[in-house]
């Protein structure tokens, strides 16, 4: 298989790239939702992200990518202890995937041929400690959405079916993309995404030509192109790793907490998830920039993507909620 398009070679779409880098630094932020027109590089960015992410250490052969030998689930049978490096899993959840494939099911093969009751893990198991990517998330079947909501919340997949009773960890970063013209997302699912960004096609010819030029080079002059950009990608990977180290030691002054709260109150966002995500994202942003203290600047840099999907929906508001956040942001935090 050819290598995916390099992440750093994506032209523009800064908000989308920023959001993805932030979740790579702190998976606790809880996922990215990318909404926008077709052909704006949504899928490209996710595939590129998979190649960009640092490798994880996991027990060899473990179906849920456990980090320690004692975490390998009992139902797996074998007890491997060897630790290997493997790429961070980025798992595709295709539309119309059956429940069996998502949560896992009785292993028909073993049941029929050997008469054993064994569990065949699904996509959620494979996505543990990694990313779960749903393209066209707004077209996803309701019953799969319900399953995801529960698992994304608890970080654990519980399977009670066909005589099986099994649970395994399923902590993943949810990445969704879609085109809002084709249908909207339920507020419950929206809320599970930490950050949301809207992407639009570049509006000037120069940018578009640059996109074409890079894509063309990627396809027709693959090796030279990858060589140029691999260096940039690995620099970005290094700064993500560095940010992960800095993150726990970051100082968060009380004034920033105050800013978070007053911004969310002014926007009238439901619940406290808004504040918490905003703060986490601001910390990740500060760590990425190499600062030792979170400031209002970091807060402002992430506020739109952390809050724009949490506002009460106003059916009569033609302008997007993104502009509402921007307006209130300038009013509240000058």
């Amino acid at each position, binding site marked *: *298989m050819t290598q995916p398009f390099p992440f750093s070679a994506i032209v523009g779409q800064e908000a989308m790239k920023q959001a993805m880098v932030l979740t790579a630094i702190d998976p606790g932020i809880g996922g990215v939702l990318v909404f926008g*027109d*077709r*052909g*704006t*590089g949504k*899928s490209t960015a996710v595939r590129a992200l998979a190649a960009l992410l640092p490798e994880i250490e996991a027990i060899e052969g473990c179906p849920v990518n456990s980090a320690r030998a004692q975490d390998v689930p009992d139902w797996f049978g074998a007890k491997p202890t060897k630790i290997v490096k493997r790429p961070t899993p980025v798992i*595709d959840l*295709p*539309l*119309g995937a*059956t*429940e*069996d494939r998502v949560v896992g099911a*009785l292993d*028909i*093969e073993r*049941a*029929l*041929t*050997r*008469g054993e009751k064994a569990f065949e893990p699904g996509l959620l198991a494979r996505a543990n400690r990694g990313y779960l990517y749903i*393209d*066209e998330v707004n*077209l996803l*079947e*309701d*019953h799969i959405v319900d399953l995801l909501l529960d698992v994304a919340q608890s970080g654990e997949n519980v399977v009670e079916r*066909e*005589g099986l009773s099994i649970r395994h960890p399923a902590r993943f970063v949810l990445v969704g993309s879609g*085109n*809002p*013209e*084709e*249908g*909207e997302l*339920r*507020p419950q699912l929206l809320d599970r995404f930490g950050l949301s960004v809207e992407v*639009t*096609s*570049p509006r000037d*010819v120069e940018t*578009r*030509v640059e*996109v*074409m*030029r890079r*894509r*063309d080079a990627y*396809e027709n002059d693959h090796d030279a192109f990858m060589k140029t950009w691999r260096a940039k990608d690995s620099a970005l990977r290094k700064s993500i790793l560095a940010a992960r180290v800095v993150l726990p030691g970051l100082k968060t002054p009380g004034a920033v907490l105050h800013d978070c709260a007053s911004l969310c109150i002014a926007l009238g966002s439901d619940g406290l998830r808004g504040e918490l995500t905003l703060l986490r994202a601001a910390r990740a942003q500060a760590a990425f920039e190499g600062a030792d203290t979170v400031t209002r600047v970091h807060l402002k840099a992430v506020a739109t993507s952390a809050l724009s999907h949490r506002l009460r*929906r106003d*059916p*009569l508001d*033609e302008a997007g909620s993104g502009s509402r956040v921007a307006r209130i942001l300038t009013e509240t935090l000058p």
Partner: protein
Amino acid sequence: MTEPLAPWARVECALAVLAVDPAGIKGLWLRARASAVRDRVTAAFPPARRIHPGIDDTALFGGVDLAATLGAGHLVHSQGVLADAAPLILTMAERSPPGLSARLSRWLDDKGPCLIALDEGAEAEETLPSALTDRLGLFLDLGDLGWSDTEALALDPAQIAAAKTLLPSVTLPKDALQSLTSVAFAMGIASLRAPLSALACARALAAWRGEAVASERTLRHAAELTLAHRGDLPDMSEAEPDPEPDTPPPPPDPGEDEANQPQDDADRLPDDVLLEAIRAALPADLLARLAAGRAARSAKGSGTGAVRKGNHRGRPMPPLPGTPGSGKRIDLVATLRAAAPWQPLRRRGVDTSRLEIRKSDLRIKRYQQSSDRVLIFAVDASGSSAFARLAEAKGAVELLLAQAYARRDHVALIAFRGTSAELILPPTRSLVQTKRRLAALPGGGGTPLAAGLRLAFELAQQTRARGMTPTVALLTDGRGNIALDGTPNREMAEADSLRMARALRAAGLPGLVIDIATRPQPALRRMAEMLDAPYLALPRADAHRLTSVLQAAMGG
């Protein structure tokens, strides 16, 4: 100036491009009803496997071949069609559900060489999902081609082979990338996949024509093949009047063109030349289609009738004997249970300890699911009632929409005024679209109540065929004065609307009549009785009250 391609020459070019560089161009969207002309085109396709919109995951990705496994006593896998990277033909593509199109898109992005989608949509709205149309590079519409316009197509295998060898070394003129991108941008094509397809198409076409560097004519034709169907053209009034709009362009003659071209095009911007090619290639109804609303064009997975007692989702029902496959899933526990009593018998005489399962033991899963609801608003926008009340009706629809969104209901909007009824908004869950259409709803004219009911009836039947549960909400002042045939005759109008009401009732459609006249109308009450629907007189309805009434009528 280079002539645009003649329709049949365009078909030939498209097929050549497809044969030369299937992986680069990704595929062809062929819009045509089944006909002898289409057969001529399909006969020239590269060898490909055919798939249909109802194809299931096992057939696509492969899986366990159950019958063979049982017989052999060890696991037998079947291979899916997506496993080998061979071209695919998707028949009846306009009926492909979003799930399938998402899978095929993923396959195209990944390793699939190309997909040929045979789109037989009858209406402009009936077409394949935009996830696919965006990825397939080429578009052909055979709608206007008669048998006499065509001739047998045979691509010379030697020429294809030569073109394939030449392809890697083909280069484009320096400014080609820039000009193709600007043209696509000028046409308002948002997707960046379009100019990429145009580039790939230009390369393949140049290789096919044996050009080491793609000529301007090739670039023009590539733009025509890949961009013409995608976008809107820039303001026509700005462009110079088309010199000969009605005469069909003669088929291009390569030798002659090459000679004339440079001096003719020297004083023009190449972008303009490309744009002109596209304009000439536009199907006649494209602008009309665009005006009718681009968003409505793409299928939203509604083409297939949703299965209500299906094998996929919903509440489980008792399993049935049957063979898994084609969407049916095995119920393993039930299967084992069915096989268990027979084990001693079956093992007799056979020296085995393994489970003996026969095909007759297989049980499949069934589920029951409640279907999506669709709320059809038939709104009286006539002069008599509506000037005062139309705003209120709009308000109610809008408020209800917010709730329908939360409950995942679909909403459709019909307005009747003047002499006819009009479908303002086909069933949708999109808030954005509904708001836009609603805001633009005009008022005034006569009251063709019967026509409104008829359209509501037709729409309800359509949505029901798609597996949804329709409810009709009629908002009117009841003074129907236009008969079904469009004549202003009050008595006939009355009779017609009562007839339509009977038809609605006979079809068992749940309904609701809301009287928005200033005083309650006895005629409307009679109609509500005829419809077997709740009747509500709302002399001074405010939108909020209307909404709560609607909710109660629909059972919350």
